[in-house]
C-alpha cells in the first residue's frame, strides 16, 4: 500500500526526468517551432499529474474506510479520512540519529496532497496554452513536474530529514521557474533573491529539525510527536522551525522575496507562489502541531508575526499597480491569517483556510494570467473595461475576489470566519493585538480586492496593442479571449473556490461572521465610492501621503540592502584584499625573507682563502678560551 504513496511522489519526478532528457530526442535543438518536443513534454507532464491525481483519489477512498478514533476535538480531516498508511522504505545509518526513508499518508497529508495535485494538473493544462510559443517549454514543464514531486514529498514524508529534502528541492524549482525568462536581469535577480532569502530561513529550519530530532532520538515525525520533549527544547526547536516557516511562507521578516517572485510566468505564480509551496510552511506547523502546542512562547511569536504581516501586506496590496503584485501581497496577508489561526490554537481553521485559499488564489492567478495574456501588460493602469471582452474571465475572477474578501457564499467566507472566530476565542499574550489586526485586515482586503476588480474590468478601456512583446510577456493583444485549454482549468478551479466552504457550514460562528462581513463591505464601499467619483483615477489615492510607503512595502527591501547585502559585499571585497595582502603576503614575505637571509650568508662566501683561514683561527681561539674559562 505504501508503494502507492511512493508512486504518487515518484510519477511527477519521472515525468520531470523524461521531460528534461527525452523531449528533445531526435527533434533538433532549441528551434522555436519545435512542435514535437513541445507536444511530447506536455504529454509527459500532464500524464504524470493525472496519474498522481487518480492515485490520490484512490488514497482518499482507502483512507475513508479507516476506523474513526473516539474522543472529541479531533480535526475534521481525521473525521473525513480516519485511516492511515505508513511505511519505511529504508533506514539510513548516519552514525548518530538514523534517517528513516519513510512515507505516511493520513487525513492531513492527503488533504494537502489533493490540493497540490489538483492545482498542479490545472496549471500544467493551462500552461500548454499560456506558454504556446515558448522555446523552453519542455524544461519549464519538467521543472513544474519536479516541483510537484518535491511538494508531494513534503506532504507525505514520514521523517523530517526526508521532508527537508523535498522542502529544499521546492526552493530550487522556485528559483529555476522565477528565473525562467533569464534574459532579463531583473528576473534573474528576483530568482536569486527568492532562493537566498528562503535558504536563510531553511538553515534555521534544519537546526530546528536537529533540535527536535536529537531530543526525541529520531527524525521520524511519529516519534517526535510521541516523545516527551522538555519545554525549553521544544520552544527552541519550534522557534528555529519558525524561521523556515517564515522563509517559505513569506512571513515577516522574510517576506520580501515573494512580490519579486512574480517575475516568473503567471502559472508558476499560481502553483508555487500562491497555492502550494508558500503554504508548506503552514502545513509543517500543522503537521507538528502537538509540539507547537507544548511551546506557547513560539505560538505567541507566531501571533505577532502574523498580526504585523497580515495588515502590512494588505496595505501594500492596496497601493500596487501591478496586478500580480497585488495578488502576491494578498498571498502574504492570507498566509498570515493561517499563521494567526495556528497561533490561536486552531490547526483546523488554518488548514481549512489553506485549502480554500489554495483554490481561490490559484484561480485568481490563472485569471490574472488570462488578463495579462490578453492585455499584454501586468499593470492595472493599462487595463480597464475588460468585462465585455472577457466574460468568462470576469465571472471567474469575481468568484475568486469574493472568496478573497470573504463574501458569502464563496469558500473564503467560511474559512476566514473559522480563522477569525478562532482568534477571537483564543487566549494568548498576543490575542488582542492579533484580533484587532485581523479585523482591520478584513476591511483592507475588501478595499484592495474591490480596487483590483474595478480597475481591471470596469471603467474606460486603456488597452493599446503593443508593437513587440517585451520580455516576460507571452503574447501581444489579439482582441479575443484565451484558448480553451486555458479557460477549462480556470472554470474547473472556480467550482471549489465557490463551493468548498460549505464543507464547514456547520461550524460557522454567525456573530463573528457578521462583524467581518460588515467590515469587508465597509472597505469595499469606500473604494467603490471613490471610484464612482472618478473612474479613471486610482482609488489608492485615499491613502494620501502613505501611498508611497505602502507601494514600496514600507522600504523593507531598501533596509535589507543597506543592512545586509551591501555590508556583505563590502566584507567580501575586504576578504579578497586581506587574502592577497595579509595571508598570502605572509607566505610571499617568508619567501623574500629567506632570500634576503641567503644574501647575508652569501657575503661570507667570498672565495678569499685568507678570510677563511682568519675565520678558522678565530673560531679555534674562541673554543680554546671557552674551554679554559668554562672548565
Amino acid at each position, binding site marked *: 500500500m505504501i508503494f502507492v504513496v511512493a508512486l504518487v511522489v515518484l510519477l511527477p519526478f519521472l515525468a520531470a526526468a523524461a521531460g528534461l532528457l527525452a523531449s528533445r530526442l531526435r527533434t533538433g*535543438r*532549441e528551434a522555436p517551432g519545435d512542435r514535437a518536443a513541445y507536444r511530447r513534454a506536455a504529454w509527459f507532464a500532464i500524464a504524470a499529474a493525472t496519474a498522481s491525481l487518480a492515485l490520490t483519489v484512490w488514497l482518499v477512498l482507502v483512507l475513508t474506510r479507516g476506523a474513526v478514533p473516539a474522543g472529541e476535538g479531533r480535526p475534521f480531516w481525521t473525521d473525513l479520512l480516519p485511516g492511515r498508511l505508513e511505511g519505511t522504505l*529504508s533506514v*539510513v*545509518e*548516519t*552514525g*548518530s*540519529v538514523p534517517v528513516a526513508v519513510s512515507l505516511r499518508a493520513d487525513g492531513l497529508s492527503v488533504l494537502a496532497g489533493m490540493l497540490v495535485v489538483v492545482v498542479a494538473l490545472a496549471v500544467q493544462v493551462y500552461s500548454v496554452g499560456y506558454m504556446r510559443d515558448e522555446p523552453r517549454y519542455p524544461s519549464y514543464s519538467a521543472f513544474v513536474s519536479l516541483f510537484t514531486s518535491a511538494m508531494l514529498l513534503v506532504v507525505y514524508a514520514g521523517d523530517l*530529514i526526508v521532508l*527537508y*529534502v*523535498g*522542502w*529544499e*528541492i521546492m526552493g*530550487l524549482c522556485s*528559483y529555476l521557474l522565477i*528565473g525562467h525568462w*533569464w*534574459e532579463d*536581469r531583473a*528576473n*534573474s*535577480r528576483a*530568482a*536569486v533573491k527568492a*532562493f*537566498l532569502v528562503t*535558504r*536563510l530561513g531553511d*538553515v*534555521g529550519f*534544519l*537546526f530546528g529539525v*536537529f*533540535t527536535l530530532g*536529537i531530543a526525541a532520538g529520531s527524525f521520524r515525525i511519529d516519534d517526535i510527536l510521541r516523545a516527551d520533549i522538555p519545554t525549553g527544547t521544544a520552544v527552541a526547536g519550534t522557534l528555529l522551525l519558525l524561521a523556515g516557516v517564515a522563509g517559505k511562507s513569506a512571513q515577516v521578516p522574510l517576506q520580501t522575496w515573494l512580490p519579486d517572485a512574480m517575475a516568473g510566468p503567471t502559472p508558476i505564480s499560481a502553483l508555487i507562489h500562491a497555492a502550494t509551496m508558500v503554504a508548506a510552511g503552514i502545513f509543517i506547523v500543522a503537521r507538528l502541531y502537538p509540539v507547537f502546542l507544548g511551546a506557547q512562547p513560539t505560538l505567541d511569536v507566531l501571533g505577532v508575526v502574523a498580526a504585523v504581516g497580515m495588515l502590512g501586506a494588505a496595505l501594500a496590496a492596496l497601493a500596487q499597480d501591478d496586478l500580480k503584485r497585488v495578488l502576491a501581497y494578498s498571498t502574504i496577508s492570507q498566509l498570515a491569517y493561517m499563521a494567526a489561526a495556528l497561533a490561536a490554537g486552531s490547526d483546523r481553521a488554518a488548514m481549512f483556510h489553506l485549502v480554500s485559499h489554495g483554490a481561490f488564489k490559484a484561480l485568481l492567478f490563472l485569471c490574472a494570467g488570462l488578463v495579462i495574456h490578453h492585455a499584454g501588460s501586468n499593470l492595472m493602469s493599462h487595463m480597464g473595461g475588460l468585462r465585455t471582452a472577457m466574460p468568462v474571465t470576469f465571472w471567474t475572477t469575481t468568484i475568486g475576489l469574493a472568496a478573497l474578501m470573504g463574501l458569502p457564499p464563496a469558500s473564503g467566507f467560511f474559512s476566514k470566519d473559522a480563522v477569525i472566530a478562532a482568534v477571537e476565542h483564543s487566549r494568548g499574550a498576543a490575542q488582542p493585538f492579533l484580533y484587532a489586526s485581523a479585523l482591520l485586515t478584513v476591511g483592507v482586503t475588501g478595499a484592495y480586492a474591490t480596487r483590483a476588480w474595478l480597475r481591471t474590468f470596469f471603467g474606460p478601456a486603456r488597452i493599446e496593442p503593443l508593437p513587440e512583446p517585451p520580455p516576460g510577456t507571452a503574447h501581444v493583444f489579439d482582441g479575443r479571449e484565451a484558448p480553451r485549454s486555458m479557460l477549462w482549468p480556470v472554470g474547473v478551479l472556480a467550482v471549489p473556490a465557490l463551493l468548498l466552504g460549505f464543507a464547514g457550514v456547520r461550524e460557522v460562528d454567525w456573530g463573528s461572521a457578521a462583524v467581518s462581513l460588515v467590515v469587508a463591505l465597509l472597505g469595499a464601499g469606500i473604494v467603490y465610492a471613490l471610484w464612482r467619483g472618478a473612474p479613471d483615477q486610482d482609488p489608492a489615492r485615499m491613502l494620501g501621503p502613505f501611498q508611497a510607503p505602502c507601494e514600496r512595502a514600507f522600504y523593507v527591501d531598501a533596509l535589507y540592502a543597506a543592512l545586509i547585502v551591501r555590508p*556583505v*559585499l563590502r*566584507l*567580501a*571585497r575586504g*576578504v*579578497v*584584499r586581506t*587574502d*592577497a595582502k595579509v*595571508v*598570502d603576503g605572509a*607566505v610571499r614575505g617568508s*619567501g623574500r625573507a629567506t632570500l634576503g637571509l641567503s644574501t647575508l650568508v652569501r657575503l661570507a662566501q667570498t672565495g678569499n682563502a685568507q678570510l677563511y683561514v682568519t675565520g678558522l683561527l678565530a673560531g679555534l681561539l674562541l673554543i680554546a678560551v671557552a674551554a679554559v674559562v668554562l672548565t
Partner: protein
Amino acid sequence: MSALPAVLLAVPLLGAAALALPVFRGRSTSAYGIAVSGAALVLALVVAAVFDYRDAGRIQLGLDVPWSPGLGLRFHLGVDGISLPLVVLTALLVFLCFVHLARHRPEGGRPRALAFTLLVLEVGMIGTFLALDLLLFFVFFEVVLVPMYFVIAIWGGPARRAAAVKFILYTLLGSALLLIGLLVVWAQTGTLDIADLAARHGSGIPRTAQVLAFLAIGVGLAVKTPMWPLHTWLPDAHTEAPTVGSVLLAGVLLKMGTYGFARIAIPVLPEGAATLAPWLGAFAVVGIVYGSLACLAQRDLKRMIAYSSVGHMGFVLLGFATLTPVGMNAALFGNVAHGLITGLLFFLAGAVKERYGTADMVRMGGGMLRRLPYIGSLLTFACVASLGLPGLAGFWGEMLALLGAFRPAAALSRPLFLVFMAVGGLGTVLTAAYFLVMLSRVTHGRPTETVPAGPPLTSAEEIREVLGPGEPVEPVATGTAVAEVEEPARPTWDVTGHELAAWLPLVALTLAFGLWPKALLAVTTPAVQAVLGQGVTP
C-alpha cells in the same frame, strides 16, 4: 593476503614505465592512456566488488611484506570502508581525465610526457589511500607532489612557474611537519603499522606527545587540505593548472589531506585530537565563511571554484573536529561528494575557458544559456550540487557535519560547537549566494560579446589588482563593460561527445549518492565506528 592492491598500483606504474619505450615516440598516446587508466579503474571496481561490505570496518585485501627490515618498514597495503570510496574515486577521475585528453591536446604539447606524469600521479594517489604503514603513506604522499609540480609548471597557464613553485614549496613545508609528527609517533610506540596503532587507540603515547604529534601531523595535513589560513597556494595552483591538473588537484589531492586525519591523526592520537579539536573546528568554520566571502568577490571562474574548495573542505574538517561517528561520516561523504562535484566544475570551467578564451567573468559576458545551452545547464547543475542542495551529493556531507557539531563528542565543549554550527549554517547561505550570483552573471542575461584580450589580465596578481576598491561586483556592471550584440561573433560550439563521456559519470554519481546516501554511508559507518573505538564515542 591478497595481491589485488599491489596489482592496482602496478598497472599504472608499469603503464607509465612502458611509455618510455621508443615504440611510443611520435605516436598518439590517448588510446593507451585510456586503456591503462581504464584497466586501473576496472581493478578498483574489482576491489570494490570483492570487498566484504558486512565487515567494512575491518581492513581487507591486506598485503603485508617486509620492505626494509632493518628499519622495521613494511610494505603494508589494504582497504577498509574509509579508503575504498577514495580509491575508486581516484581511479575514476584519472580515467575521466584521460577521456578528456583524448580530444583536448594539452596546450604545452608533449602528450606522451603528460600521460606519463598522470599515471605516476595515479600511483601516488592510490598508494596514499592504500598504505597502512606510516612511512609508506608518507612516501606515496610525497610521490604525488612531483608529477603535480610538472603538470602545473609545464602544461599550465601564463603564470604557471610561480604557481608551481609556490605549490611545491608550500606543500613540502607541510610534509616536513607531517614527517616530524610521524616520527614522534614512531619514537613513542616503536611501530609504524597504522592498523596496529589504530587498534591501540592511543594507549602507550603520553598526552603531551600526542598533542605535539597531532599538532605536527595536523598542520602538515592541513596544508594539503587546505585549511584556512594555509590555503593560499591553492587558488594560484588551480588558476594556472590545466583542466586535468585542476580536476585531480581538487578531486583527489585535497582528499589526501583529509584522509590523513581519518586514517592517522584521529585514530592514532585520540587524546591529541580531543585537545586540539576545538581549534580545528574554529579554523574550519572560519575557512567556510572566509572562503565563501572570497568567492563572492572573485572575477575569475577557476579561482572562484578554487576558493569554494576552501569552504567545502571547511565542512569536512568541521566533521572531523566533532570527533563523533556522524561527523567522521560527514567528512568522508563530503570528501567523495566534493571530488565528484568539484571535478565536474573544473571540467566545465576548462570547457568554458576553451570556448570563451578567458575565465574572467566580466570579460565573458552573460547569456551562456543561450550561447551554450548544454554547457550552461550542466554548469547550473554542478553549482546547485556544490551549494549543497538536498537530493544531490553535496548536501549530506554538509548536513551531517552540522548534525555532528550539534552534539559533539562528550570531551568537547558543546556551546562552542553550537557556535560553530551556527556559523557553518550561515556559510551555507553564503555558499549559495556566490554560486547563484556567478550563475546569474554568466549564464543569465542576453548574450553579449566576449571582450577580446585587451590589456593582459592574465596573472592572479593582476586580477586582484583590477578588483580594487570601488570596483562594483554587481552583475549590472557588466552592461557597461560589454556591448550587447544580436549574434555573438565568436563562434562557439556546444558540448561534444567526448566531453559528455567525461562528465556524465560524475553527474550520474552526484545524483546517485544524493538520492541514495546509504550507498556510501553503509560503507563508511562501520569503519568510522571501528576507528573511533569506545574512547571518544558519546
